[in-house]
């Protein structure tokens, strides 16, 4: 079965870095699921079926943690110890917060006006900013030094905020879909 004490990078045989070949992750994920998925054990003794369920769930958990850049950054930082990033908005720079508050207002207005195009434009804006920050987080984390990790934590706080905003805009768009 899957060794639950191994970290997600080791589990997939990937380097412990923020940036890696995403195709390698997909390949390793599929190869592991081919071994442990419950469908492979439906005709097996109960003990094997239980192990398959636990192992397959673990592989899915690891895959989702590494596939999403924000989750991956959090996971990498958790592996390297140190306090988890402070999620409180008070920890964010004032300038960043002001920009996001303005944007939140624009999002609310677009929703009130049921303007799907405006929501899509705001979503694209958020995506662009998130992409820039993700690039910074990637560079900081892959330099693999404690000082850079501290900076990465700060950028990641902003990135997490943006991801939440993007998800909220998605939910509003879904609402407009009817």
């Amino acid at each position, binding site marked *: *079965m*899957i*060794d639950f004490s191994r970290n997600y990078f080791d589990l*997939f*045989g990937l380097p412990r870095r923020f940036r890696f070949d995403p195709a390698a992750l997909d*390949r*390793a994920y*599929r*190869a*592991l*699921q*081919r*071994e*442990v*998925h*419950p*469908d492979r054990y*439906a*005709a*097996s*003794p*109960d*003990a*094997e079926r239980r*192990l*398959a*369920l*636990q*192992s*397959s*769930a*673990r592989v*899915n*958990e690891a*895959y*989702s943690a590494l596939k999403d850049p924000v989750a991956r950054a959090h996971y990498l930082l958790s592996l390297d110890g140190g306090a988890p990033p402070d999620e409180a908005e008070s920890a964010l720079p004032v300038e960043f917060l002001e920009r996001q508050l303005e944007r939140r207002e624009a999002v609310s207005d677009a929703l009130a006006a049921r303007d799907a195009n405006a929501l899509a434009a705001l979503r694209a804006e958020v995506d662009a900013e998130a992409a820039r920050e993700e690039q910074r987080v990637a560079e900081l984390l892959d330099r693999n030094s404690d000082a850079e990790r501290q900076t990465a934590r700060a950028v990641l706080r902003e990135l997490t905020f943006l991801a939440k905003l993007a998800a909220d805009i*998605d*939910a509003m*768009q*879904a609402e407009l*879909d*009817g």
Partner: protein
Amino acid sequence: MALLQISEPDALPVKPPRRLAVGIDLGTTNSLVATVRHGIPVVLPDADGRPLLPSIVRYGENGVSVGYPAQAEQARDPQNTIVSVKRLMGRGLSDLADARRFPYRFVDTPGMVRIATRAGVKSPVEISADILRTLRERAEASLGGPLAGAVVTVPAYFDDAQRQATKDAALLAGLPVLRLLNEPTAAAIAYGLDNAAEGIYAVYDLGGGTFDISILRLSKGVFEVLATNGDSALGGDDFDHRVYCWAIEDAQLPPLAPEDTRLLMVKAREAKENLTIHRSAPIGAVLADGTKLELTLTAEIFTSITQNLVAKTLAPVRRALRDAGLTTADIKGVVMVGGATRMPQIQKAVGEFFGAPPLTNLNPDQVVALGAAIQANVLAGNRTETDDWLLLDVIPLSLGLETMGGLVEKIVPRNATIPVTRAQEFTTFKEGQTAISVHVVQGERDRVADCRSLARFELRGIPPMPAGAARVKVTFQVDADGLLSVSAREETSGTEAAIVVKPSYGLSDADIARMLEESFRHAADDMAARALAEAQVEADRVIAATRRALETDGDLLDAGERGAIDAALDAALQSRGGADHRALVAATAALNAATAEFAARRMDRGVARALTGRQIDALT
């Protein structure tokens, strides 16, 4: 019963006999059972050669009838002839916005709604079990023995209560359920394997009472569901109902008796089906009071009165695409599933939305059952070299817990790949609090009141601590059937509580036991013979699996371990030759237990092999 002919235990070959496995599409309007014969999935017809079984159950003066005989009597006996029971699965009366549409005598019991019939008060689970039992008997007669397993399909957008109700119905019908499989996923398997499809596909599945949209990536033998969405109360029935309402208005009819309602609904459906090939369809009926009805429904009128139903299917399509992070340009093909997709206005709307004509080169009534049969065949252990495909499915709706202020904390997000395990820590609110109440809900909204309540349970016996000091870890586990179980544990004291989620809308275990007993009393089967046959099927499965494991990975065991497993195997073979089903069940369980550690080591080896790169390279 072919399996009963095996009398010499030693005659059991290492390569096991083919296990009889079926796929069942339990539909709102029609149900089907299919199997794989000589490597090809086929639908099993009834004795008269008809592939479909109308999902209609009549509790008549002389017993239960299912399918065409029940259909023939529906307008005469509407209150005892249950159609579209799938719409009631896992639902309370208050959930049914369209309850008035059904002519039944509903009984508003806590949890799932029930119906008063001539044969007593029936739950939707019992009524569905009558349909499934008919299919099981059809399959056993056709295949010549008890079934080793069945894959039963459910709408992808079914929530936990609806899935659990379906599984309970299968249990009640005496079906060994290998898996609950999502209908659009089943269709994708049948379509994908048949056409060697690669790329991203959408499956648009409009059935009699449910709508699903699933987006899948088909790549190198992996069927990966990227997102699913839908409406579990939208289907062909609703189009019939629009025609029915139009007819009543057009002919200025007064409120109708249940018999006339059912008659007119049947006529509405016929007109709808007629419009698949014709530009207009007559609706003619003689009502109970002698009123003659003669109307003509044109394609134009039909399209205009059902316009918003068609639009209602496209909203979930947009949501599924957004969740998958895709646009229509990314979709290589749209597979159309479900009888209702024969309607020209549906095909037109889907074609316009995706900018390409949908794929209609398969039988929309049968493809789900065929896909389920292919999956059942593999899951039952009849996997061959060509069956090296893998299915990765998702849960349709987020799962969460109620927190302070009636808000929902999401634990497992929608479209998470299953199986999935997620845990979240909570703490106590008051000083000295010794119990917490856990309320499990499903849905996308932020407020508990807007989500479906799945279950409530309490974790008691937490040692008194200051507010916020206790650490309660709540773990959600969704298995490969998409069914949830929840456990809670206070980490500082180790206090635990666990439940399989079913109380709110499902049936209690006591209900199931009572119904099973009743169904056995009424069945003509000899219960003991059936129990033995089932124990033998299970024993053969475990014996064969153990032998295969010993053959391929026997080197993982030392002499002592090997001896213990051989002894358990011999004991199981011994009991297999006898007629005592209890002894056989016990011996099979002992063999299961004896191989537990061996199983873990074999899986280790498989995992190690998967990561050496050899297999990975072979897949690229």
